[in-house]
């Protein structure tokens, strides 16, 4: 049953897609512009000097970039461990209030980042925790755990419980069963969930603003950079790097999970 869409609908769809993706093209274009104080279209000329400027003249790029990578990496590792444990616990156990606890796990990703941010900030204040890399990581873990949790839970639901019993029946203890049966079953879900978690953490701004203290992650550095009138195209060069770092894992996660089923939890 295929129906042909009308011309108006086709144009509307095309316009929508252009509206979504043209700004991305502009980011690439402005990385090569010769005008450094404002974004002027069309660019008066083209140059590649901002790439070398970013590399040689701007040591201030590196601390935020390294911080962002570090935070994303730690938040992803935490998510892999706790997301998997949470999914395993809630998949197997049957107890009163299970659905409520499941909801509590998913809630942080549905909650606006600003709420999460304010809540965490006041919580850190009350606990007297000084803001540091670790408070950023904790902030990010609130949503990266959900991503892994959802992916792994979906996989557990497809894995027959009797497979674990079969492994035990054939002589394997808990750790052996985890290594030889459970881990291979959830490996691609972990990969997909982990990459999504990394990408989400790497470009997170809102929660980070409230939990970072004096440090700047890369997205916050970029935001600040746009307010300054010098070497603006350098920001675009960095933006291209960010696109590469976040887009490639998401793309990879998409291909990894495509053969299996589609998993929820990719919307933040």
């Amino acid at each position, binding site marked *: 049953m295929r129906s042909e869409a009308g011309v108006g609908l086709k144009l509307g769809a095309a316009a929508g897609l252009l509206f979504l993706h043209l700004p991305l093209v502009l980011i690439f274009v402005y990385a090569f512009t010769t005008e450094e104080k404002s974004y002027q279209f069309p660019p008066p000329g083209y140059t590649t000097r901002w790439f070398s400027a970013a590399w040689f003249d701007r040591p201030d790029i590196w601390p935020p970039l390294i911080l962002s990578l570090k935070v994303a990496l730690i938040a992803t590792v935490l998510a892999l461990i706790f997301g998997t444990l949470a999914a395993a616990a809630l998949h197997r156990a049957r107890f009163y209030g299970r659905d409520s606890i499941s909801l509590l796990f998913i809630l942080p990703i549905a909650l606006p980042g600003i709420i999460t941010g304010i809540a965490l900030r006041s919580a850190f204040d009350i606990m007297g925790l000084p803001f540091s890399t670790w408070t950023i990581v904790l902030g990010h873990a609130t949503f990266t755990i959900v991503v892994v949790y959802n992916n792994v839970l979906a996989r557990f639901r497809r894995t*027959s419980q*009797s497979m674990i*019993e*079969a*492994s*035990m*029946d*054939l*002589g*394997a203890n808990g750790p052996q069963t985890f290594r030889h049966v459970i881990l291979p079953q959830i490996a691609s879900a972990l990969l997909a969930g982990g990459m999504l978690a990394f990408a989400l953490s790497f470009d997170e701004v809102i929660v980070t603003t409230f939990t970072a203290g004096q440090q700047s992650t890369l997205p916050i550095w970029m935001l600040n950079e746009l307010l300054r009138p010098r070497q603006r195209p350098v920001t675009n060069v960095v933006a291209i790097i960010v696109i590469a770092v976040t887009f490639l894992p998401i793309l990879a996660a998409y291909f990894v999970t495509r053969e299996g089923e589609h998993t929820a939890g990719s919307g933040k």
Partner: protein
Amino acid sequence: MTTAVSLQQVSRHFGPVRAVDNVTLDIAEGEFFALLGPSGSGKTTCLRLIAGFDQPTSGHIEIFGETAEGLPPYKRNVNTVFQDYALFPHMTVAQNVAYGLMIKGLARTEREPKAEAALAMVKLSGFGSRRPSQLSGGQRPRVALARALVNQPKVLLLDEPLGALDLKLREQMQEELKALQKQLGISFVFVTHDQGEALSMADRVAIFNEGRIVQAGTPADVYERPRSRFVADFVGSSNVMSPGFSAAHGGPNAWTSLRPEKISVLKATQAPGTGLGSADGPVIAMHYQGAVTRIVIMAGDTRLTAAIAAGAAHFAEGETARLVWSKDSLVAMESP
């Protein structure tokens, strides 16, 4: 005769539900033992208690004289064939079969020939390099069987392993399983809700209802001498007569079972032979079932069904038929 598995007053309660309720059972070495019952009757829970996937609420379980309760599945010398086979999809058939040997720490060179031999035993030689997803419905239970048997268990537990197969394949697998069990000489504990399967394969059958064993014995025992209406109805089909009806028709003054195939059907005008029991009534249904035809009559308010060879007699609905049986065929039961 050595006792392979012994359950002594074993119960397993899930909250208020008594899934297994005070079950006592001895399974001999080398015996093909069927646990038969409707779904939810406790037979699978019983099997899981023997395997170690579940622990009894109370009671005592011994496997070859050793206390089993409290032991995890990997410390028991029993293996299980699961209802859904539970093959590992990320491994080849050969890796599946060799799994138990790999866990035991056998070198690859040792376990591969053993796995291949186990596959040959279930007639799957040469399938080792396939994935479980590439197997047909009839091949999967064989892999599950080979994977369990390669560990040389003393007791093999089978949880409705043929339930998913179509009739032809199921009958073929029943024969092969029986032959395999004889050849290996180990105990098979076989869970099924299919009474035909239990009767044709097992040396002994335990019939479960609501968590309890209601009767146990050889297939002929439980079929010929049902002790309750439940057994009479569940194992095959039966006419259950009230004590009053039975006594009025030459039977004992007790709840009585009469198998449909023990009944012959006469026209109302024909006299029954001497010494035979009989009842007359209008025919309310004729069910043609291929090899047999089932004739249902109402004798007063008792419904009686006779199974006769197809074409042996013909009645119109409403016509009076005379059902005749030998008094030996009436089996007095202990409870209704």
